[in-house]
């Protein structure tokens, strides 16, 4: 059990920032991103605990996180939360976190709004490839498509992005 925990701790330290970013760019809410990231790692832990063979930790974490995000958007009441955060309303965070959020919101307002103009499918592949630095095989695993299809879609996504960025 201790070995499993140590392994899980290593995985957490290695990928928590990436998973948080991946989630944040899709829910645009730091608190929700924190909740989903935590849930992602908890589900990952359950797989370790059950003794499941894990071939690629990173890909699996993205698959889990994506599933939770999809569930999040399926809930109608949560859809209303998808908006840029009102920092001033957040009184529960420390100054450090508020600065972090302001910084994040600036990033969102500049780049993410441009990305939002392209097809969701293309945006997903672009972010996984150029922000998360996933390999084609990993993207295929996360999106549940064939690697060849991912290459084709990425090619089209890049073509669409010309003139937008």
């Amino acid at each position: 059990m201790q070995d499993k925990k140590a392994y899980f701790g290593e995985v957490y330290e290695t990928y928590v920032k990436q998973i948080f970013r991946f989630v944040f760019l899709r829910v645009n809410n730091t608190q929700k991103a924190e909740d989903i990231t935590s849930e992602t790692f908890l589900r990952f832990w359950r797989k370790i605990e059950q003794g499941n063979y894990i071939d690629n930790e990173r890909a699996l974490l993205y698959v889990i996180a994506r599933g939770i995000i999809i569930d999040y958007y399926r809930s109608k009441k949560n859809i209303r939360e998808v908006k840029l955060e009102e920092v001033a309303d957040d009184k529960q965070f420390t100054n450090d976190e508020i600065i972090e959020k302001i910084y994040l919101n600036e990033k969102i307002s500049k780049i993410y709004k441009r990305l939002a103009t392209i097809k969701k499918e293309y945006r997903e592949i672009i972010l996984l490839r150029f922000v998360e630095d996933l390999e084609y095989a990993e993207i295929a695993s996360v999106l549940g498509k064939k690697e060849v299809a991912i290459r084709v879609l990425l090619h089209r996504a890049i073509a669409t992005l010309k003139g937008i960025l």
Partner: protein
Amino acid sequence: MNEKDIAKKLSSLKDITPSSQRIKRMKEGIFREIDGKKVHEKNPVWYARYQFLMRPQYLLLVLLLIVVGVFSISTMQKNIQPVIFSARIALVNNHYEKAKLAFEEAQTQLNSINDSDLSSYQQVMETTTTTNAYISHLQLQGEKGKYTKEQCKNLYQKYALYLSTLNHHLQEEKQFTYEATIVNYQKQAKSRLAFYKT
């Protein structure tokens, strides 16, 4: 625009990272959940739900309820027995079957009589009176085809023997209260038996 250009344009998004405080807080929360789950596995749901019953006052209450429950069930069985007996008799459609059922019940009660308990004698006598009432109503003409003369004779023979045993038992135990009644029943049985033997 090639892949490198896009990567460069989007590179600023890679700066999005949670604060160290947030990372620490999330980790603590996850490990708390993991450790909490282990405790939960050791103690199943039912244990957690009913753990309060292990307190002495609840334990006493539970024991009391069990005692009351057992007592109620035994009392209910005693009370319900005559009801079942009456219902069984009511369900059969001729006097022979009614008399037979009442007689069987009287025999059972006599076999399990408790000599030290006066109420058990009273109970046997009540059932015997019921048996006597039904057996007296046996009439071959009114209920023709439902039972035979031979069946009536056999039943009366057994009944006469039963009355004799009961009388003997009561005399041994010096229970003279019911003597006159039993002698009367024996006379009736003797007379009827003589009729069925002809």
